[in-house]
């Protein structure tokens, strides 16, 4: 079968509540980035319900991505999928879609680490080469930099992720998630009208942080009903963001790198961007933030990371394509960086 002249990779993302399909050329051009998000009726992500959403949405999202890119399935040279880390049922749904596509089209399959993908799409879109990365989302909060073949984790949360902390607080405050309006964005809007800084726990341990105590303290104050909600949102953000900014600055001072990259869903928050930009400036480093459409979980980042992996000799035979729920960033070989 003759492939078209431009080699393309299709990437499937399904680690948590978003099912995404992206198409990237081998040269790093993103042709499509379609997705469908599962919105729980109440509470957080129910893995089985999210997986059901993904299975139902897969056909539509795939079609949307292919038509946006103007690519026929038979033109695809490679299928990539997020192999982990994430929620089991969700990961397995995406992996099934990817395996089926690769087998049917008879093209190679490559499993991609979701955290690596968040970093790589940030680098691709901003032009950053060797940054200290702060990756903050609903499931991850870590500070990483490349050293000797892998992205090393310099700091991370000892308990819950930053996005998780903000989301749980927002839900407790009765904010509702809407399509196209994540809870974090609703919280950010309220925080912008905060006037008074309420004292909350600030927990930095070495290069790690702990957010669970902060969340408990903030929700306790919320339930007491004595503080303005805007002030609480503002104070929660200021404390949590100051903590991640401090550890990012520590990693920056430690590694002496000259670029900072902010990536992941919470990267869309302007206040967090402002803080990180401030420390970058202080250390004469260039500040980069992933564009909003690639901040949240997406298929394009999987497609692009799939290209990087495949063009550096990595493939994932179907029989080894089982999902890895706990695939830590620092366990992944990154042969495409010298």
């Amino acid at each position, binding site marked *: 079968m003759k492939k078209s002249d431009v080699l393309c990779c299709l990437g499937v993302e399904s680690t948590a509540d978003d099912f995404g399909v992206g198409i990237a050329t081998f040269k790093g051009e993103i042709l499509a980035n379609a997705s469908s998000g599962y919105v729980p009726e109440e509470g957080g992500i129910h893995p089985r319900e999210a997986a059901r959403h993904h299975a139902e949405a897969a056909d539509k999202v795939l079609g949307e991505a292919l038509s946006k890119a103007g690519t026929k399935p038979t033109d695809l040279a490679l299928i990539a999928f997020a192999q982990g880390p994430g929620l089991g049922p969700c990961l397995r749904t995406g992996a099934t879609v990817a395996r089926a596509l690769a087998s049917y089209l008879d093209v190679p399959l490559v499993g991609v680490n979701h955290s690596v993908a968040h970093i790589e799409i940030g680098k691709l879109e901003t032009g950053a080469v060797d940054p200290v990365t702060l990756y903050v989302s609903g499931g991850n909060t870590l500070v990483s930099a490349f050293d000797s073949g892998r992205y090393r984790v310099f700091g991370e949360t*000892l308990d819950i992720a930053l996005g998780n902390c903000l989301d749980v607080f927002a839900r407790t405050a009765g904010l509702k998630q809407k399509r196209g309006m994540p809870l974090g964005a609703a919280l950010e809007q309220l925080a912008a009208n905060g006037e008074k800084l309420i004292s909350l726990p*600030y927990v*930095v341990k*070495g290069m790690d942080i702990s957010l669970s105590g902060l969340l408990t303290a903030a929700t306790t104050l919320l339930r007491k009903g004595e503080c303005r909600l805007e002030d609480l949102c503002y104070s929660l953000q*200021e404390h949590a963001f*100051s903590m991640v900014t401090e550890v990012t600055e520590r990693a920056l*001072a430690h590694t002496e790198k000259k670029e900072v990259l902010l990536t992941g869903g919470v990267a869309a928050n302007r206040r967090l961007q402002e*803080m990180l930009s401030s420390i970058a400036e202080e250390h004469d480093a260039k500040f980069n933030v992933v564009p909003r459409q690639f901040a949240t979980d997406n298929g394009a980042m999987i497609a692009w990371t799939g290209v990087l992996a495949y063009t550096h000799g990595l493939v994932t035979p179907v029989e080894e394509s089982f999902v890895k*729920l*706990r695939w830590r960033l620092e366990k992944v070989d990154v042969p495409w960086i010298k």
Partner: protein
Amino acid sequence: MDKVDSQKLLKKGAEASLFLASWHGRRVIVKARFPKKYRPAELDAKIRSYRTAHEPQLMHEAKLAGVPTPTIFLVDMKNAVITMEFVEGKQVKQVLPHVSKKAQQELCGRIGVLIGKMHRRGVIHGDLTTSNMILSGEGKIFLVDFGLGEKNSELEARGVDLHLMKRALQSTHYQFAEECFRNVLRGYSEVLGGEDAGKVFEKIREIERRGRYVDERKQA
């Protein structure tokens, strides 16, 4: 009398800047915590003054526990500046990769002993990395940078302190982190005794299981 002269920037850290200076004819380190623009002024003032007040106290406590730390000369609470002894030597971070396996194990064992002594007296360092340990010319290991430390005798605090040490070894000395950490724990047990150290080690495993996307969670 309190005049500190000829300051030269040694290291611009995240938490503080370190200057080499002279005070009454001796070389000293001036540790200045400058305001951080990114956080609200109230929070900034709170963090800087808290750390400036606690760090010297903890360093003194550690010294009483038999852990070498630089002697404190001046504490300027208003400007969040501490003036302390300059310890001549090399960071353990720089030394560790260039010595024999045997010397590595010995060094890590001694680090474990120091952590054990500190913990026994209720001092938590809060940022145990090989950059914060100085091997002096006389061969003593000094612990520095107690800015994130606290007085705490709970298992949780001890466990986190050692867990951070392990993580620091993994990110900085990934080639031999496992072995180094084993030796740190060996030295630690020598001081605390098998039973008490065992409780801390169990706590470390619990802390690891709380982490995100770690294999340790499988056993939970």
